[in-house]
């Protein structure tokens, strides 16, 4: 590929790409993000290639591998252009039919369409409720781009924002545009991006660095992963524009080694950008020179903290330092360093192209633009969701997420990952923005959103996050390390029925000291899952401690399974299913669970026919004495 030496050469390059494409030619775009790959996407892709060859369609139809479309619950996804027919849960066995029906005869394969609760089939992606309520500024391009082909990105206007910044705007104007847009960091703390850039720009010294933080590690969160996998150029373009505004000539992408596809696609994207003269010396023929190196993280959650991340890039242990001199002023090798999250960088090209006013019109007074959430847990439509800031939780969980999957009631939503908190049903109408979430005792974080139903124990949830953090803290400072250790022991005790009066007070006292005295943000926020569950679900803690009862029936050591003699029909199903052989009984005889053998796996409850409903889960009360062996069931002779 010849290097592009001016903005007009970029324009011409794009024109040529578009001219070489026939918009009427059928094209299957296949989601091959990590989610769809995990449920057989690669086989579906292979099947399309083979089937197209078999039906003699090579050169007449296209197949495009794309990144994550977001609707992971229904993957693998395939969208057939030009009509944009959206097929869900596609398997290799479906492919011959799609090829002969849709690609050849332009007919729809009804059974692969989305079907709403009302039974109505929906043909187009953007009409499916999951997508209909979203604003996909960042994620929208994923479905149109093969991340290994820079032409696809450029065809959509990619790198035109860079050309605009380099040739139409001064670095000061770029900085001003981002400041005016109100963009705030998407990595967690929500610091104003323009202000951060300005600090690094104004900091003393010739050498400056810009860094992409792709060390996403919150349990259940994969938004940054999907942006890097699916549209790496949007991040690279944002980074170059930011570096130009700041005056940096070197950049790093710190990405988890556990994201192999993101690392691979990013590496290819950087090479292609370099080949086209969009990175390296004299970008697009301008005086500006900038290049990027990829640093693969070794899997420490704490390395997402800016000073720890920079220590890791320098080759030291990823451990935070007291940040009284900010990394913006003294970061990598003591040089001014601007670090932003993947999603923050990906917002920059859109802001430069469409302007600060356009961006500022989206969102709330203090939180502008859209935000991507990874919606997971007990919700029908799990996946990646991008909505304007200020969208109420209810719309995300019910309109987009389709409500609770288990048929049980909603109990809480956890936002902000291990630094965030759990919000109860009373907060479902809360608009999701930085301030509102924080006031409610949670936080935006990087965008994890875990939905929980009545069957989730909130004490156990707090224990889970505390355990995660106790393993992922660097262990350097006393309040975080020792605080988490003690918190974990107390919470584990409470879940196991060993809770004592005074535990709640002690936990609160610990949480307060951790929040105030820890060295870095991991420690100062580590108590949030505990403190927020105590704030909204204190009664559950009290039930565990005082009555040895788990109201959700989730804590194994506080529950017992019991077969109600009056209801048992002696069908033997539970006895045959019990993996611990803890159920005795014979035809016509009431079945009995031997509590000393029971492992509380719950299989008996699951398999007992619902018309009998003879198995009960008991918590906080003694199990009734077992009936005498051989007792005949009632209602039968």
């Amino acid at each position, binding site marked *: 590929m010849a290097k592009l030496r001016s903005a007009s050469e970029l324009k011409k390059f794009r024109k040529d790409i578009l001219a070489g494409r026939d918009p009427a030619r059928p094209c299957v775009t296949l989601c091959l993000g990590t989610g769809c790959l995990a449920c057989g996407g690669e086989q579906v892709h292979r099947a399309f290639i083979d089937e197209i060859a078999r039906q003699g369609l090579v050169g007449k139809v296209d197949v495009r591998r794309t990144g994550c479309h977001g609707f992971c619950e229904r993957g693998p996804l395939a969208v057939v252009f030009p009509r944009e027919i959206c097929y869900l849960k596609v398997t290799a066995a479906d492919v011959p039919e799609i090829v002969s029906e849709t690609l050849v005869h332009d007919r729809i394969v009804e059974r692969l369409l989305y079907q709403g609760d009302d039974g109505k089939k929906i043909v187009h992606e953007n009409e499916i409720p999951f997508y209909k309520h979203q604003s996909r500024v960042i994620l929208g391009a994923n479905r149109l781009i093969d991340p290994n082909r820079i032409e696809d990105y450029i065809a959509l206007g990619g790198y035109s924002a860079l050309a605009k910044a380099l040739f139409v705007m001064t670095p000061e104007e770029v900085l001003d545009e981002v400041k005016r847009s109100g963009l705030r960091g998407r990595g967690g703390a929500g610091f104003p991006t323009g202000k951060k850039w300005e600090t690094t720009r104004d900091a003393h010294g010739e050498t400056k660095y810009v860094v992409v933080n792709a060390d996403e590690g919150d349990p259940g969160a994969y938004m940054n992963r999907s942006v890097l996998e699916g549209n790496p150029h949007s991040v690279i373009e944002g980074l170059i524009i930011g570096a130009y505004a700041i005056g940096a000539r070197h950049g790093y992408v710190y990405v988890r080694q556990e994201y192999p596809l993101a690392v691979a696609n990013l590496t290819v994207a950087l090479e292609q950008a370099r080949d086209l003269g969009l990175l390296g010396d004299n970008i697009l023929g301008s005086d500006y020179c900038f290049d990027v190196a990829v640093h693969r993280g070794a899997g*420490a959650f704490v390395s997402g903290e800016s000073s720890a991340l920079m220590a890791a890039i320098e080759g030291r242990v990823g451990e935070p330092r007291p940040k*009284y001199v900010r990394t913006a002023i003294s970061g990598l090798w003591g040089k001014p360093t601007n670090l932003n999250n993947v999603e923050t960088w990906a917002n920059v090209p859109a802001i430069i192209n469409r302007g600060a006013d356009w961006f500022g019109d989206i969102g709330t007074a203090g939180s502008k633009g859209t935000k991507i959430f990874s919606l997971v847990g007990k919700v029908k439509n799990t996946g990646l969701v991008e909505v304007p800031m200020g969208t109420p939780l209810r719309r995300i969980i019910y309109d987009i997420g389709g409500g609770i999957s288990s048929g049980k009631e909603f109990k809480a939503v956890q936002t902000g990952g291990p630094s965030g908190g759990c919000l109860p049903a009373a907060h479902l109408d809360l608009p999701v923005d930085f301030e509102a979430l924080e006031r409610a005792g949670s936080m935006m974080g990087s965008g994890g959103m875990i939905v929980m139903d009545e069957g989730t124990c909130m004490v156990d949830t707090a224990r889970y996050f505390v355990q995660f953090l106790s393993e*992922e*803290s660097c262990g350097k400072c*006393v*309040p975080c390390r020792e605080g988490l250790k003690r918190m974990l022991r107390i919470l584990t005790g409470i879940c196991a029925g060993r809770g004592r009066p005074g535990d709640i007070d002690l936990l609160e006292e*610990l949480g307060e*000291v951790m929040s105030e*005295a820890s060295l870095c943000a991991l420690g100062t926020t580590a108590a949030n899952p505990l403190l927020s569950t105590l704030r909204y679900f204190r009664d559950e803690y009290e039930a565990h401690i005082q009555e040895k009862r788990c109201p959700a029936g989730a804590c194994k050591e506080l529950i017992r399974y019991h077969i109600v003699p009056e209801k048992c029909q002696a069908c033997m199903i539970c006895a045959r299913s019990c993996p611990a052989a803890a159920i005795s009984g014979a035809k016509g005889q009431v079945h009995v669970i031997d509590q000393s053998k029971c492992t509380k796996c719950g299989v008996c409850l699951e398999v007992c026919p619902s018309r009998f409903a003879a198995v009960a889960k008991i918590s906080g009360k003694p199990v009734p004495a077992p009936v005498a062996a051989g007792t005949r069931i009632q209602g039968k002779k």
Partner: protein
Amino acid sequence: METIQLEIDGKKVEAERGTTLLQAARKAGIEIPTLCHDDRLAPFGACRLCLVEIDRGGRKRLVASCAYEVEDGLVVKTVTEKIVKIRRMIVELLLAEATTGPLEVLAEKYGLKGSRFKGDEPACFLCGLCVRYCAEVKKKDITCFIGRGIGREVAFPSDLARSACPLCRECLPLCPSGAWYSLYLKGYEGMPEEAGPRPGA
């Protein structure tokens, strides 16, 4: 060196720019407790006992005085109700790990009779004095941290101990928890005679 003025606990204090709040306070005779600090080593900020409250134009926050540099006109309080609460909790957390001289002094100062947390075996405070002294002063890097989170430990790999430890033993008196001495001895287990005298011998 430029001298600047600040206020610590209501007292006007002069300090050289580039020095820390802890140094300025100690020079003025104001004692701030520490466990992980040593004047010969770079600030570490891990024990958090030295937290003080700074007030800049009405904005108050807690900082580790061992790492925070003096600023002109800064108002500092080394003792507030909140700070005492934090220090007491930190000492209580560590008391569950080990009871040794320096910690007992602190326990008495903060009125602690014992710890509400149940201890296991005497454990290391992970203050890193041995690790950092070996690295920064002796330039040896023999002792090191391994693991992270609640699994973090200090290690003294015996192969390194045998081949590179200068047997200076200057690390031994630095340890506030007493855990280092047994680890140090363990590092020499099975060592041949010609490696030199065992520590403590």
